């Protein structure tokens, strides 16, 4: 394969540094009561991977059921519980927290030259809230599941099901607060904890993306909290706020729910975009093309993200004139994503590109997110939304953006920063294979679903007409390949913890501040607080830095 920019220290002499944030204290309590943002990030990484594989197993069950037109693998209400749990776990326990809580927690303080996040104790509280939410979800699954879909549509969820809506609601409520505290921590840190010389336009784009996502977390999630409190009151006391027979309006729940749930999809994708800005810049050895445009389009997505929520409700009988307003604003919010894609593409221009695993995942992200983004516009235009909404076109759209976009970016970020987090390199060839397998499996799984969507196959169907079977069989075949693609990283990453090569401080020769210190880093990140005297992605500064080092050692 082509040359690589990987430069590892001489393996015979290289050792993992004696004191680092992992070896500083040991014992379970030192981990469970830590206020070190890096340890909390590792705790998050473990719990998120656990929930990702439960959600993934449920996805496998769904795909197996849809192999045949009849519902024969499991009873229909079991199928309903499986896809509801798949939705709740994947969205609230994986997609919303994954990149911010793991990579964001670990690297934002290091990227801005701070010793820790502004509020370390709140950070730990955020993880505990996440765990309590997770336990409640597991309790819900164990004690009979819930079959309302992750959207909890009233009046179904309040009057017409007798499954555990309350415990799921409480789980989502508590996990919501975990997300609020993470977002709050990031905003305060980015405003107040930057090291000297680190102006806003010298921040890595990773931090800009998390800043935008945190605004959405802080301002959007409380509305979901109140929607769930009202849902719980309606279900227990029957106060009539969403019950049409008592004068309430079920569409009010849709408004409150989607007011959070659309910004939530930007909470999920923006951190992923931040990771892609870092990887594309590092592996083409170039400053990101149009740095300010990419930074401002993140913030533009955050601002516009609040005004588009009713495009989930176009056919639900909201007024035709509100549809005009929300459809127009949806078109506006699609533009910053297009700007970002073209900026990443032009970052490659005149670069010096290498194709390590993070770069392969980033290419996968750029391709799949372009398709995902464009199909979003199909649904934003109110005309075609009539035919395509609530069909498999929607399922394909959000899986392209969430799994093709966010998950690819998460894997790119994990592979890119694994050497910094653990001090060990992962096996390059095997991981490149896993990236390609994931890409192929993904396309085979979700592309047929676009065609199923135009055919009108509805969402959440356990049984479907026979003429849709062939496309569903392709989709299930793709899902098995995708499953293998996702299992591989867990295997070789855990293997690399013990047997991986020693990575050294800056294996990718990247320009971020986090690469200028030892790996795994010290608990206080830097021996002396760095002074930022260069622009964000300054590869000339890096070469001067390395020349100075060689001179001093030589």
């Amino acid at each position, binding site marked *: 394969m082509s040359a690589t920019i990987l430069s590892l220290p001489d393996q015979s002499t290289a050792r993992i540094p004696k004191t680092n944030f992992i070896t500083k204290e040991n014992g379970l309590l030192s981990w469970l009561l830590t206020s070190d943002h890096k340890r909390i990030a590792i705790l998050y990484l473990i719990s998120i991977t656990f929930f990702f594989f439960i959600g993934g197993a449920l996805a496998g069950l769904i795909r197996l059921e849809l192999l045949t037109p009849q519902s024969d693998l499991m009873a229909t209400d079991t199928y309903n519980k499986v896809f509801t749990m798949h939705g709740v776990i994947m969205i609230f326990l994986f997609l919303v927290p994954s990149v911010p809580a793991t990579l964001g927690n670990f690297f934002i303080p290091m990227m801005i030259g701070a010793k820790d996040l502004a509020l370390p104790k709140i950070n730990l509280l955020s993880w505990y809230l996440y765990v309590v939410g997770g336990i409640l979800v597991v309790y819900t699954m164990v004690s009979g599941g819930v079959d309302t879909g992750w959207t909890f549509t009233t009046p179904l969820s309040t009057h017409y099901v007798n499954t555990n809506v309350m415990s799921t609601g409480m789980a989502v409520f508590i996990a919501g607060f975990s997300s609020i505290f993470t977002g709050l921590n990031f905003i305060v840190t980015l405003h*107040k904890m930057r090291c000297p010389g680190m102006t806003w336009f010298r921040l890595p784009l990773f931090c800009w993306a998390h800043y935008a996502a945190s605004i959405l977390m802080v301002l959007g999630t*409380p*509305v979901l909290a109140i929607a769930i409190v*009202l849902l719980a009151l309606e279900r227990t006391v029957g*106060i009539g*706020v969403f019950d049409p027979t008592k*004068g309430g309006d079920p569409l009010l729940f849709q408004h409150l729910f989607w007011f959070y749930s659309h910004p939530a999809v930007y909470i999920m994708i923006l951190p992923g975009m931040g990771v892609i800005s870092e990887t594309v810049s590092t592996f083409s050895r170039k400053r990101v093309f149009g740095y300010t445009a990419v930074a401002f389009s993140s913030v533009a997505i955050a601002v516009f993200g609040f005004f588009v929520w009713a495009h989930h409700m176009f056919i639900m009988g909201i007024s035709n004139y509100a549809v005009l307003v929300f459809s127009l604003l949806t078109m506006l919010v699609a533009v910053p994503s297009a700007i970002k894609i073209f900026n990443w593409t032009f970052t490659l221009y005149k670069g010096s590109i290498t194709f390590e695993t993070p770069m392969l995942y980033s290419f996968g992200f750029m391709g799949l997110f372009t398709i995902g983004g464009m199909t979003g516009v199909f649904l934003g235009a109110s005309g075609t939304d009539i035919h395509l909404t609530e069909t498999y076109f929607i399922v394909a759209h959000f899986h392209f953006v969430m799994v093709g976009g966010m998950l690819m970016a998460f894997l790119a970020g994990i592979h890119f920063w694994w050497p910094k987090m653990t001090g060990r390199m992962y096996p390059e060839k095997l991981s490149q294979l896993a990236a390609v397998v994931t890409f192929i499996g993904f396309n085979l799984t979700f592309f047929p679903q676009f065609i199923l969507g135009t055919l009108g196959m509805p969402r959440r169907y356990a049984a479907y007409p026979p003429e849709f079977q062939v496309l569903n069989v392709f989709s299930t075949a793709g899902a098995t390949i995708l499953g293998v693609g996702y299992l591989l990283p867990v295997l070789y990453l855990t293997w690399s913890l013990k047997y991986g090569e020693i990575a050294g401080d800056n294996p990718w020769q990247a320009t971020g501040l986090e690469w200028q210190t030892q790996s795994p880093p010290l608990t206080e990140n830097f021996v002396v607080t760095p002074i930022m005297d260069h622009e964000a992605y300054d590869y000339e500064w890096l070469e001067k830095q390395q020349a100075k080092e060689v001179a001093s050692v030589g």
Partner: protein
Amino acid sequence: MSDSPAIAHGALAEAGDSHEEHPAYQRHHFNSVEQQADTTNFAMWLFLLTEVMFFGGLFTAYHIYRNWYYPAFVAGSHQLDVFWGTLNTVTLIASSFTMAMGVWCAETRRKNGLVVSLVLTFLLGTVFLGIKSIEYHEKWEKHHVPGFHYSLQSFINPASDPAAAAYGDKPLALDMARHTELYFFLYFAMTGMHALHMIIGIGILGFMIFRARAGAYTSGHVTFVENFGLYWHFVDIIWIYLFALLYLISRHQ
């Protein structure tokens, strides 16, 4: 709902590993005391934003149902006693004032002044909750608590209920009378959520009085008092809107 301002605790003094000289209450990861004060103040403001959006959902529901069922909202609001409402508003404004004085005393290192104003704020807060419990009890007596065999008696024939008769209300048709349950749901949801925030606030006030007597806040480190002041003033603002929206829909004859 664990939304007590745990942030304020985060900023409490813990002996950080101070390799260079800095006051005891500065946490290790901050470079200076100003940075720490600034950070926790900003964090408190962001936390208040989440509270604003949390109450936003309730205000949205209120605006929609008030437009849809205005007569039911008027009849419902006549059940509330304007006297208690005004007294509560005055109490809460006064407690906001004493809280502000408390912050001033902390900033100017007047220990006794701080303790007195915190105790006054504590008392006014409990007075507020006392009045609230009187009103809730009165609603419970009249079966105006939604969901618990809610009775339409005082709306179908207002003559039987002195509160409604005072305003010469005309009897409501049955379906409009049923919608008064929506009014009382909003009343209990909004004032209940507000009272919950008051109870949490009073709990922290108690803790602060205990620490203030030990002289904790009058030695330069005032962020905890300042942040709690922000929270208390925010709870006061919410009540100012609740009073206007729930009590004063239309009091004229």
